[in-house]
Structure formats: structure tokens, C-alpha cells
């Protein structure tokens, strides 16, 4: 049974529709990540689930109960804010104990629960400090501690790592995943960082302009993106797109004219794409140097040597940017033409509407 379910959820601010009818089911214990570019409505969606924003239409159900009009605390959720929202005048102890003080729990119970949370988060030696004396990572942990003590059914995280530096971010990412394993509670996590989404999520919800673009496991989104938006959003460096026109689609192969790059024949069962303008997608990491099933020649403008791999940036004759990612340190130089190729089974094909064609 799903623990959280959104049914045709909508949100408008005056005339502007921010969330345009979202349906989603989240099962108990799942780690769900909402990901999307800024302004796609992912934070608004989270705040609606939290009870901070009113619902304009549709329903939010938690454990089978419609919670549209319930305050956050009655929904059984806890939220961690992007800026941590710690109370600067209170000690770490009092910050973590705040929800328990609101509930007016006896001091012994407060001690026990704060102690337990501090232990989980390794904050025991910091309990008497003020938030201002802590590092970014520790503040983040205090904010998480404040969420844990309530023992909520669902944890909500609003871009919790975006204020940390890169090294700390990957550290906290692992800590959060361990925390999820230990607590086993449902977590919903909002981020614009697709690396966070890919590494942490059981299920990723890709949002675009207030609508769900695709829902699925990280690898599902990577290997089988439903549409151009997801294909471009998931994966780093970005997937390369080449536009073309389908000459022939006979139910077994689709023959596509790529202009000056030649023609390519892809195994596709769809016949509907015949004659359409289509977009070909190929991930930079699926390119290899030299000849292969389909080859093309480009001249890299920029070559980035990262040690573990090498990234080339070039422009195709049609004006599209073309990125290549190769293992190790092959002999590539800026301004020197190079022959790249890719296997046909790694190519994604999108029709004129941007939907994937299989």
C-alpha cells in the first residue's frame, strides 16, 4: 500500500499554474527524489506535501487519510529546510528538542530522545553549542536531528545539501543514505542536482514546468528516458542531440537522414515516425574513438583532461554541440579532427513531440 499518494494535485498563484495535476504514489520506506531545473515547481510540491502551501486542486493522502487541510504536525511529516532554519538563540540541544517542547513532553523523555538523535548524528559533544559555532555539515545534522526526534512517518528534505561545499556534500549524501537505511522511514528529497538524485534515490521523479516528466529508478531514467527533457536532464555530461528526418520506417528499421553526417538505420518497430523530424540522442560516454557501427568526424574546440577520463567539446556542422567522454588519456588535441563512433543499440530516438521511439 502506498503511504503517500498525490491525486491530480494542482497549485496556482493567482493566474500562474505552478503545479499542473500531479499523480504520484510513494510506498513506505522509499527514498524518493524530486529533481528538475529551477522553477519547475519541485519545492512548491514539497511544501504542499509538508502543509506549508495550500492546495489549489486535487488531493494529498498520507496513510489513506486526506490531509489537504491538516497542519504539518498532524500529517506526520518532518521537514529539513535548505537554510537549515536553526534557531540561532538556542543551543543545539534546545534546537533538537524544540518539537518535543511544543508537545510538552516530560524532561526525561526529551533527554532520552534528544540523546538518541544526537548519538545517531554524532552531535553528542556539540549539544551545548549555539548553531553559529558549528560548521555547515554540523548545522545540517542539527536540522536533521530536529526532524528525527518527532519520529515522523515521512521526512521531507528541501535541497538540504545545496549550501555545503562539494566535499562535504558527498560526505553528507552518504550519511543521509545510511540514515535512511537505519530509520527505514519514507524520505522525499528535493534537489536540482542530478548526481544526488541518481545516487540516493530508489525512485526519481523528474519534474518539468509543473508536470511529471518521468518517474522511475535511476538506471531506468538513464537507460530508457521517456522524452527529450529527461534524456537531457539525467546524465552528466549531457546527452548529445542530433536532429534528422526519418526517410523510411518499415516496422523493423527506421532510416534517418542526418544531413551532412550521412544516414543511419536504427532497429525500431514504430512505423508512425515515417517522414517526421526526429532527434537522435547519444550519451558522451557511449562514444568511442576510431571506427564503429556509426562513425562521424568532429574537431574538438576544447579538450578537458580529468585523468580518469577525457572530455571533448565540438560543434557539428548542423550547429549542435557535441560532447565526447573517453576513458583514460587518449591523444586528443584542440583543433585536431578526430573520428568518433557509437554502437547503434546505445542510440535514443525521439519523435517530433520529443517522446521516445522504440
Amino acid at each position, binding site marked *: 500500500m502506498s503511504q503517500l499518494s498525490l491525486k491530480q494535485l494542482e497549485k496556482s498563484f493567482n493566474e500562474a499554474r505552478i503545479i499542473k495535476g500531479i499523480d504520484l504514489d510513494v510506498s513506505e520506506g522509499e527514498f524518493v527524489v524530486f529533481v528538475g531545473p529551477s522553477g519547475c515547481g519541485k519545492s512548491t510540491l514539497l511544501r504542499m506535501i509538508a502543509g506549508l502551501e495550500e492546495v489549489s486542486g486535487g488531493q494529498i493522502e498520507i496513510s489513506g487519510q486526506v490531509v489537504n487541510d491538516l497542519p504539518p504536525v498532524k500529517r506526520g511529516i*518532518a521537514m529539513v529546510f535548505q*537554510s537549515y532554519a536553526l534557531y*540561532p*538563540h538556542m543551543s543545539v540541544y534546545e534546537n533538537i528538542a524544540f518539537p518535543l517542547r511544543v508537545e510538552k513532553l516530560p524532561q526525561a523523555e526529551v533527554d532520552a530522545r534528544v540523546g538518541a538523535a544526537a548519538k545517531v548524528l554524532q552531535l553528542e559533544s556539540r549539544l551545548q553549542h549555539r548553531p553559529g559555532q558549528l560548521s555547515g555539515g554540523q548545522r545540517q545534522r542539527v536540522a536533521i536531528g*530536529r526532524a528525527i526526534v518527532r519520529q515522523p512517518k515521512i521526512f521531507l528534505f528541501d535541497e538540504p545539501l545545496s*549550501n555545503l561545499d562539494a566535499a562535504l556534500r558527498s560526505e553528507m549524501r552518504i550519511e543521509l543514505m545510511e540514515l535512511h537505511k537505519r530509520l527505514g522511514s519514507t524520505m522525499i528529497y528535493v534537489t536540482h542536482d542530478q548526481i544526488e538524485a541518481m545516487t540516493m534515490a530508489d525512485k526519481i521523479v523528474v519534474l518539468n514546468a509543473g508536470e511529471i516528466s518521468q518517474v522511475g529508478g535511476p538506471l531506468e531514467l538513464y537507460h530508457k528516458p521517456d522524452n527529450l527533457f529527461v534524456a537531457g536532464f539525467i546524465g552528466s555530461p549531457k546527452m548529445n542531440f542530433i536532429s534528422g528526418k526519418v526517410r523510411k520506417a518499415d516496422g523493423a528499421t527506421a532510416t534517418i537522414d542526418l544531413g551532412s553526417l550521412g544516414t543511419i538505420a536504427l532497429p525500431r518497430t514504430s512505423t508512425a515516425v515515417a517522414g517526421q523530424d526526429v532527434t537522435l540522442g547519444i550519451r558522451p560516454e557511449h562514444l568511442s574513438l576510431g571506427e564503429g557501427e556509426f562513425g562521424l568526424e568532429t574537431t574538438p574546440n576544447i579538450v578537458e583532461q580529468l585523468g580518469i577520463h577525457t572530455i571533448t567539446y565540438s560543434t557539428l556542422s548542423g550547429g549542435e554541440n557535441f560532447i565526447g567522454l573517453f576513458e583514460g588519456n587518449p591523444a586528443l588535441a584542440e583543433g585536431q579532427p578526430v573520428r568518433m563512433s557509437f554502437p547503434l543499440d546505445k542510440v535514443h530516438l525521439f519523435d517530433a513531440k520529443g517522446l521516445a521511439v522504440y
Partner: protein
Amino acid sequence: MTDVAHTTEVAAVDSPATVKPKARVKATKAMIDRYKWYEVVALYAGIALFLFFVLAPFIEGFLVSLKPLSQLFSTPYSFIPKTWSFDSYVNMWTSVPMLGMHIFNSFFISTLVTLIVVMVVVPAAYAFARFSFAGAGLLLGGFLAVNMFSGAVLLIPLFRLMRSLGLLNTYWAMIVPGAAFLIPSSIWLLRTYMMRIPRELDEAAWVDGASRLYTLRRVILPLAMPGIVVVAIMTFIGAYAQQFIFALTFNSKTEFMPLPIGLFAFFGKQEVIWNELMAASFVGILPVMIVIVILQRYLVAGLTAGAIKQ
């Protein structure tokens, strides 16, 4: 480390007065805080000049309070007393027996006004800072407009109002208009201060089950304390300064009169006892000074402890 050593050398080259740069404390100051010796002198001279202009009346007043009355009207007038004593500070209590009462009244009225203003302004400022409700902008504009009228313009309508409410010749006659005129500007001040407290703190408290009032008490009030102290100080001073006009118009009972009116008792039929008048003024200001010094400590403490950091 080398960076620091380098900047010290630069400072040494810059100022010829610095012979042994490493021994001078000046070298540890940030570059932006470093001044040449003549710049420092000019700064202090400027401050001294300004302070003299501001404080000259007070200095003169204090010196008058030390002189015997005869010396005040001597020619040539001597600014510095030839003979001086604290006699006025003793005699004033007998020449105006109600003086103690007047000082108490001033203090009492201002304290009550301050308490009323703070109690009204804190929730009002929170509401204006956090809730969007119909007419909020209009009300704030109205408050600003009220501030454009001085109390004196409204004396006659206020008098009629006080009379129909039966408040004339009571403490309330001075407290109620005093508070009313000070509330609007305080709401503006504290509202701005509270708007700087991140909204996410309210939201976090709300998510954790706190009511609006609980959030106000446990989260907003402690963080807004420096702002509230500023409002309290401004109100207290404002109430002290403006009670003159309300006392003069709405009250005729000597025992309720605050100090500014009480000082008229030193104006005799034949002469004005200037030295005792000045002494009484200084003693009358003392409570205000004490209150400010006490509140200021909270102000500084609040500023350092409640720093709102993201």
C-alpha cells in the same frame, strides 16, 4: 604567514612616523582601518568640535548649577565659576518641596508609556511583518501620516476627547496620548527589524507543531530583542520629552505634574532660582540616564547573542 609579514613592511614604508613597525599595535589592524597620524588627529578634532556643539548647553547648565545665584548676573560673566558649591543640589528640595514627586511622576509616566507601547507594538509589528491582510499597507501609511502631526496640532480635539472620557487631571491624561503618538513609528521600526528574521524559522516552527503565538514567544521575541530594546529606549526618551505639552494642557493637579512642569515652581514672583532649576533638571535626567545605560547593555548583549546567521 608571509602575507602578514609583507603587509607589515608595507605599513612601515607608508608611515614615516612608524620607526619600529613590528613593535606597533597599528600594524595588526586591517588595511582598511589604517590611518596616518594626522588623519587620526583630524578625526578626533572633528568629533571634539561636534561634541562641544552638542554638549555646550549641558556644560553651561551644569556650571550654572554650581554657581551661587549672585554670580550668574555679574558682569563680566564668567563661564567658569569663581566659587562653586553643590548647595543648589541640597536647597532645591526645600525651595520646591514637591520636586521629588515631580521627578517620580516623570519617571512613572514614561515607564508606563514604554510598557504600553512595547506590549502593543510587539504583536502588531509581528503581524505586519508576517501576515498579509487586507488594508495592511493602508494602515502602515496611516501610521506614517499620524507621525506628521505633532501632538500640539491635535491638542484641542484631544482635550475634548479627554474630557468626555473623564481622563482630565489624572495620570492617564498624560499616559494615553503619550503612548498613542509613539506607537506608529515604533511599529514601523520593529516591523522592519522582524522582516529581517528569516521566514523559514517561522515555517520550521509551524512544521514542528508550534502555534503562531508559541513561535512569537520562543523564536521571534528572543531574536527581535535588540529591536525591541531600541523601541523601548526610543519610546522612553520620547515619552520623557513629550510629556510637557500633555501635562500642561490636560492636567492641572500639582501632585500629578511631571518634572518639566514642576520646574516652573522655581520661577518666583521676583526672581528665578536658576542654579537650583539647573540642578533639578540634572537630577531629573538621572533616571533616564540609568534606564538607558541598563537597556543598552541588553542591546549589545542581544546583538552578539542573537546574530541571525543563515
